[in-house]
């Protein structure tokens, strides 16, 4: 089973890297970019779990390691 975890900064948390990327896009001539927030994507391959058990385990992984829940949100997708 494959799963994808997406970790993003919570609203209101300053993202200087996103701002730098936004500035760089503007300097490349991309007009109309009103905001960039940078995040992380983790692709996981899981063995021997049904979708529900996998989701529960992925939630634990996010809470314990993959995300810093002080500043980050996470989203879990079961891909196949």
């Amino acid at each position, binding site marked *: 089973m494959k799963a994808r975890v997406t970790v993003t900064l919570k609203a209101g*948390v*300053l993202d*200087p890297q996103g701002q730098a990327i936004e500035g760089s896009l503007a300097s490349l001539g991309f007009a109309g970019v009103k905001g960039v927030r940078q995040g992380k994507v983790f692709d996981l391959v899981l063995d021997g779990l049904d979708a529900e058990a996998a989701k529960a385990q992925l939630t634990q992984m996010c809470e314990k390691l*993959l995300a*810093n829940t*002080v*500043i980050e949100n996470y989203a879990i997708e079961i891909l196949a």
Partner: protein
Amino acid sequence: MKAAVIVFPGLNRDRDMIAALTKIGGVAPAIVWHQDADIPDVDLIVIPGGFSYGDYLRCGAIAARSPIMDKVRERAARGVKVLGVCNGFQILIEAGLLPGALMRNTSLKFVCREVKLEVTATDNAFTRGYQKGQIIRCPVAHHDGNYFADAETLARLEGDGRVPFRYAEGTNPNGSIHDIAGILNAEKNVFGLMPHPENLIEAAHGGDDGRALFAALLDRAA
């Protein structure tokens, strides 16, 4: 007063910290490798700076989940003093021993320079050797020292005198909220800070403003 220094792979300020503790305390600290089963019976545990585990995932995140940190957590709960400097501060935050988060510097640059710190609380074991309101010099060297906490946490930290060091005179090097350079836990026996007081303890360093922190911790005259 016995001290131990915890060493993780990728730290690079451990020798500076060991030298400072030895010179000021008169006794070499115990050195605890991250795979050691336990920490000797000590009064002070220090986590020095560097780039533990390459700072993969987030600064300090991997080290914070290593089994030796469970031992640090147990000792801290029993009242043993714990000091984390730079990456050590990031590790203490990731381990949940201190609140908030340390994010990328707002400049996005690694800063290696001297800053000024204002001593804003002295009723704790770490900064009791200074005067309240005193401005001291201290070096910093980090990429992710931008302290952040939600409004409720900040109000608690400020209200309980848990911010003993603040960047002073416009020297905030990283964009930290409220110019916070270091914070204490609620019991005031765990202290984390981004600056490196161990790198300013004698004339050869160009000053000794960091000395009073270790002297107070190790019960030695500054």
